[in-house]
Each structure stands twice: as structure tokens, then as C-alpha cells.
């Protein structure tokens, strides 16, 4: 008790402030999973943007650095990272469209929000496959 009183009031308030339960105690639902996915893909795109800017910088730096970037991008790991990046991009894009629909006040009914959540996952996978098939066929 004495130790608690010794701390500043602001610090003590932070210590005793109740915390809401975290993810693990809730039953997983589509809307919750896709909300988590939206945040995770956002974080992944943060890193992905750094890679894209790195690629642009390598190109601006000249043929030597660009060859290095090209080798990385066309390696197996590079291809996997690029496929993961495009999937994250499509998922975050469709998640964003879902948020725009919600911003208008629509899509909150049970069936509508479930359909929208499933659509972000299915749509992102379809778009990713379609994108890389087109890239492969165009070569």
C-alpha cells in the first residue's frame, strides 16, 4: 500500500485502470477475423512499401544496384514475398472498400457484414491469382 502511494497519481491510475479482454477469449467470427487481417495486412504493407521504395531507389541508383534488386525479386524467396505483398495489397484494398461501404451506413446487417467479410478473403485470393496469371501470360 505504501509503495502504491509513493507513485505519482497519473502512474497509479494507469496501473489500476481495467483492461478489456483481448482476442483470445472471444469466439472467432468472420468479421473479427477479417478485421484482424485488415490490420495485419496494413502492417505487412508498411514493410512492403519499404521494399517497393527500395526497388525504386535501386533503379535510380543505376544498373549495378538494380541487378542486385532484380536478382532478389526474381529469386524464389523474392517471388514468395511479392505474391504475399500483392495478396496483402488486394486484401487491404477490399477491406478498405468494406470500410467505405460501412461509412455510408450500409452493410451492417448480419448477412451483409458476413458476406462482405467473406468477400474480402475470397476476392483478395482471386485477384492475387488473376494478377500473377496475367503477368505470367503476358511474358
Amino acid at each position, binding site marked *: 500500500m505504501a509503495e502504491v502511494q509513493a507513485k505519482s497519481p497519473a502512474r497509479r491510475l494507469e496501473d489500476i485502470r481495467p483492461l478489456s479482454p483481448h482476442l483470445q477469449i472471444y469466439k472467432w467470427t468472420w468479421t473479427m477475423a477479417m478485421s484482424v487481417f485488415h490490420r495485419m495486412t496494413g502492417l505487412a504493407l508498411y514493410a512492403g*512499401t519499404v521494399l517497393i521504395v527500395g526497388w525504386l531507389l535501386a533503379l535510380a541508383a543505376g544498373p549495378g544496384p538494380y541487378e542486385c534488386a532484380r536478382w532478389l525479386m526474381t529469386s524464389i524467396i523474392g517471388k514468395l514475398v511479392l505474391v504475399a505483398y500483392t495478396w496483402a495489397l488486394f486484401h487491404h484494398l477490399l477491406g478498405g472498400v468494406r470500410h467505405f461501404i460501412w*461509412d455510408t451506413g450500409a452493410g451492417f446487417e448480419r448477412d451483409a457484414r458476413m458476406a462482405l467479410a467473406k468477400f474480402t478473403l475470397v476476392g483478395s485470393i482471386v485477384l492475387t491469382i488473376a494478377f500473377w496469371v496475367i503477368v505470367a501470360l503476358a511474358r
Partner: protein
Amino acid sequence: MATQNRSFRTPRANVTGLGAAHHGTEHFWRQRLTALANALLIIPFLWILAAAYGRDYASAAAIVSHPCSAVVLLLLVVSVAIHMRIGMTVVIEDYLPNRAQRVVAVIANTFFCAAVGLVGVFAIVKLSVGRLLL
């Protein structure tokens, strides 16, 4: 005692200028605005990425430095830098319970996103201006 210490300032004067008056939705609005810009620019960006992917230096540089590509990439890099800064700020505010860590992380995030945006702009401008000078 209590009456002696009473301020002559009105209750309204005590709160004027504090808090998020008229700016409370700034992050919300800017995140939507950049989201819309990103959504529109993603399509030409993926086109450029697909066209330049795996190409030799001369072809990739020609694709990226084309005026149309350069303008799309410049707009996208600026919009994405703002969008990712706001997004990461929200994540930091949600998950870092320690105030000092949170402030440092939010500042570091702002600096990092500004650097990513500026490096992107520099690279695109160097490529496209370099092409004009050749």
C-alpha cells in the same frame, strides 16, 4: 477559503483551446482521403510493377521513368506515406501501454514514414528528370 481562490474566468474560458476542437476527425478523414487515392492509384501502380518486373535495367528504367508512370508513382508514394503513418500511429497507440515508449514510437514512425516517402519521391524524380536530360 474556497471563495478566495475562485477564478474569475468563466468555465468556458477554462476549456477554450483545449482538446480537439474542430480537429477531432482529422485523422479519420485523412485516412479515408488517402485510402481513396491509394485505391485509385493501385491499379496503374500494379500495371507498372507487372510491366517492369524482372526486366533488365534499361527496360525497367524506361517504364518507371515514363512521365505517366512517374506521376502515378509520385502521387502514390506521397499518399501511401501519409496513410501508413496514420495506420501505424493507431497500432502504436493501441498496443504500447507505456506512455514514454508510445511517444517515442509515434515520433519514430513519423520520421520513418517521412523518410520512406521522400526517398521514393527522390528516386522517381531522379529517374524521370534523368531521362529528360539524356
